């Protein structure tokens, strides 16, 4: 069966520090991968998606970037965090059809 992992689960970082969040999917090949951000009590904002290795599409211009160095690995990065980057970051995948599955999330607090 397929499993999606995210780490770390929680992270507290100072303003101006770099960021790297990792997402991996097991048990499938060539998934579509997605990064979302969820502000406290708010909806889901799609940040990036990828349909293959090295293929990244950005939905919202911002302080973040994404990379997909391997088929089942998706990384969210920032060179310098802002206070407004705080939130709950969710990775999701689908097997190339409609059903999309979310990971457990990373809670990021920028201080």
């Amino acid at each position, binding site marked *: 069966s397929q499993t999606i992992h995210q780490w770390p689960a929680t992270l507290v970082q100072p303003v101006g520090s770099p960021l790297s969040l990792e997402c991996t999917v097991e048990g499938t090949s060539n998934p*579509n991968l*997605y990064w979302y951000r969820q502000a406290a009590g*708010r*909806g*889901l904002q*799609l940040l990036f*998606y990828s*349909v293959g290795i090295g293929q990244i*599409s950005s939905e919202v211009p911002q302080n973040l970037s994404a990379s997909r160095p391997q088929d089942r690995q998706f990384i969210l990065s920032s060179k310098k965090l802002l206070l407004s980057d705080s939130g709950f970051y*969710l990775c*999701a995948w*689908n097997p*190339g*059809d*409609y*059903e*999309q*599955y*979310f*990971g*457990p*999330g990373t*809670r990021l607090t920028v201080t």
Partner: protein
Amino acid sequence: QQQVKQSPQSLIVQKGGISIINCAYENTAFDYFPWYQQFPGKGPALLIAIRPDVSEKKEGRFTISFNKSAKQFSLHIMDSQPGDSATYFCAACTGAGSYQLTFGKGTKLSVIP
């Protein structure tokens, strides 16, 4: 064009009652409509989904009703339980390209004993 409008923002239901959450969309190219359930601190979980070729889908206590002409769909939770207390998101998707989901803003459901 890409928006999905969800209501109400919050909902309080007595245990055993029926919870109803509504969503409306504009883009007629949407052809897949899922509902997600999210507990605090957890990722959303796919609850139930429907395609526009049927008007209703039922899984246990959860039912999606779909009205293609009105471009509306709703989630009904029968015999609501305190364990159903969560935030529910509707979404819509087209089959083109990356299967991106367009989400509603969510409904926080509280089921009180």
